[in-house]
């Protein structure tokens, strides 16, 4: 009787563990199936992606005013449809290797918690629905890029905008 009881308890434990594993797997499968829309663009020859929810405006870049005494990664300031933003050369900022250059200049205005920034792009590649399953960790040495989307035709470096904007070089006080 006592043995039966033990065996019954073990069985219950096993069943519970099995169910938990099944549920966890289902959740994982759901996550993998999740698709998040991103705006893909090319800067310094490198394809990047930013979550669509952060993008408030995109257009051709005109009237860029250089920043006197500013660093090379801040190309200037511009007014786009009422947004007055600094334009960041993402590749230079992140210390990525320059991979060619194109003549087309666009600006992607992103907004994170009310703070806006312009990202300089040679080309807007469009909106990419990136499934979570295609996202892999990426070791770049920068907290602003920790993931890459392995799409069919290209690999997109996913910008973590909150991390990017909290970089000490983009804060109010010099570090």
């Amino acid at each position, binding site marked *: 009787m006592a043995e039966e009881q033990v065996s019954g308890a073990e069985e219950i434990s096993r069943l519970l563990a099995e169910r938990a594993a099944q549920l966890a797997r289902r959740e994982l499968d759901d996550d993998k199936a999740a698709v998040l829309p991103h705006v893909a663009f090319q800067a310094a020859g490198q394809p990047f992606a930013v979550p669509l929810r952060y993008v408030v405006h995109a257009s051709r870049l005109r009237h860029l005013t250089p920043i006197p005494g500013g660093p090379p990664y801040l190309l200037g300031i511009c007014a786009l*449809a009422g947004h007055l933003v600094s334009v960041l050369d993402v590749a230079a900022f992140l210390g990525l290797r320059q991979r060619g250059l194109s003549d087309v200049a666009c600006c992607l205005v992103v907004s994170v918690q009310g703070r806006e920034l312009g990202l300089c792009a040679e080309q807007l590649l469009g909106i990419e629905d990136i499934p979570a399953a295609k996202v892999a960790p990426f070791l770049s040495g920068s907290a602003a890029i920790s993931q890459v989307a392995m799409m069919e035709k290209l690999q997109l470096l996913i910008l973590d905008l909150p991390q990017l904007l909290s970089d000490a070089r983009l*804060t109010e006080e010099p570090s």
Partner: protein
Amino acid sequence: MDDLLREVIDIFVAEAREQADRIAQALLTMEQQPASIAKEIEELYRQAHSLKGSSASLGVEELSQLAHQLESALLPVRRQRGQLTAELVDLGLQAMDAVKLRVAGLQADNELGLSDVQRLTNRFEQLAHSAQPESPATTDRTADAATEARAGQAGSSRRAEPPAHREATRPTEDEQAETAFAGTSEAAESVRVSIDKLSALVQHTDALRRLRGQLEHHQSEVTTMLRGLEKLVRSGPKQGEAQVKRIDEDLQHLVRGLRSLRRDLMDDIEGLQSTTGELDDGLRAMQLLPASLLSQPLHRAVREACRSTGKEATLQLDGEDVFLDRTLLEAIKTPLLHVVRNAVDHGIEPVEVREAVGKPAAGQLRINIEQRGSQVELTVTDDGRGLDVVRIREVAQQRGLLSAKEAALLDENESYQLLLRPGFSTKEEITALSGRGVGLDVVSTTVRKLHGTLGIESAPGAGTTFTISVPLTVAASRVLMLEEQDHTFALPLPAIARIALPRREELATLGSQTVFYIDGQPHTVLRLSKLIGQTHTGEAPARQPLLQLRGSGGVVIACDRLRGEADLVLRPLPIELRRYPLLSSVAIVPSGPALFVLSPQGLLATATSLRLAQENLSRRRTVLVADDSITTRSLLRSVLEGGGYRVRTASDGDEALRIARSERIDLVVSDVRMPRLDGIGLLLRLRGDARTSRLPLVLFSGAQSEEDRLRGLAAGASAYLAKSDFERGQLVDVVTQLLKEEAT
């Protein structure tokens, strides 16, 4: 209400309020500056006469009578046969408050303010018939010399008859202060807009109308294309090569049309964005009000505080021409009033105490309103007794705010902060003016709500300064626009002490520095481009503008040219740019790029260090970058400047040729495909000119074919780099190598 009055009531009310404000201002000025009586009384009469006329014509007899009796009561002053008494000023100010109340009553079609107007009309009538004016508030031209010397101090508010002698129906101090400020609120309810600003807005709406026309045209194009497509669909399945070919041609035609339409629509959208942005800025600018609107309420607050306490004080208000967003202006009124009342009540000593310690009888209050970068700074300074730190700590203990041990640990600044605690007051008695411990608490709370800061500085026996600093939402400021190295900047006009346009021979050399003599003293000439981290190339103009900033010591700043003054709506810098000390704020100029307003303090701080670096900078070589892409130009500039070179830029071959021929250029980096004159054309023209035939030129091209490379090298290029293979280090290496070869 009379029909005629109903038709024009809003205009009449606005005009009457303005006239009442002007009359009140004239009364205050005459009282504070007796020398101005002759001029101000005429202004007062003009306004009173207008009020009388417009009221009479609309049948508002009570206001017409009030204005008439005011004129009669002031007639002796106008004819220099009578004095401007304190009672006259009091009654005049009360009458103007009554006018404002009455017009509000007329607007609401009720009796509001009517009894006040009638009472004051009767009082003026009595005064007009009275032969003996009452106690003088200020001296007239016949006063004795000693009194005149004291009264001559600008803005002096004087004690007068004791409160018991005042009119029984006189409002309390608080009510008066509120009425005085209500004047500012009324002014803020309506706006006066210059014809220029309105014309600019009309131009923007014209642009919007044109864009609407273009969009309607595009809509008709879409309709035509859609019909074409529908026709193709309706025509059913096709057979035979000819039919398929025709469909193919039709489809290609439609695709071309759609592409063209997309381009046009993109242009239209950009046009819309630009125009709506400018419209937005124009409307924002209309919401700005001058800080001078605070003048009358503050002067009245000081006057009333002096009357209550029996003290004397002068008020000087600087920065009245600063324009502030109306919301901000409204919000800072109350804190300012409290600080001013507090200064008179707590800071300024009684006349006998001041005279005993050798201070002027009248305390001096100074309010300065200034825009400092993204902040508005308001300082209220008095020359009173200063803050008593020991007393503040004692009171804090009595009020149970802290223990004796804690009090002993507080430094001066921490002790001052106790003043901002709710319920704190060092006054023994509660009066209408202060002592209830709410004044500075209100100041602190309001400033905090505005995301600002409140600073207190004090020196025993010398006075106290309250500094309120609040961020701007938007503010217009008068700036001087100047140009340097093809870039336009702005400098706040108040920061500029002097502008000179010396001829070259008026500049001298002292050691390695160019100097300009001002009042016999040499001032080092520093180029603006050097101060902002660039190098200046090109010839200086025959007469070079030099700017001397306030507090600049021995430095003047040279720029290429001045582009005049402008009123700009300034916006705070984006967060990431606030760390750059050379920048103050940013403005969007209509139909132009964003414009940086430079920080005078930042420029001055940079001046010293740059003087030392001057010689090193002068040894750097200059690279001319020609490319029609702004991105490429910016990138190459940063790469080459990072490599230690000066950089000049040109947006096409024509411009590059002009610069290469007129300035000292050591090497050219040029794109191949550019408008007007391409890279190969530029190369051939440079090689064909004896002045530039040996100038090294690097072709930096998007074209990647071997044929292009050979064509470039055949034309005489020193090197050929493909944009697709671009690497930062490589370009600097190539430039350095070519310049070395050229030198040998």
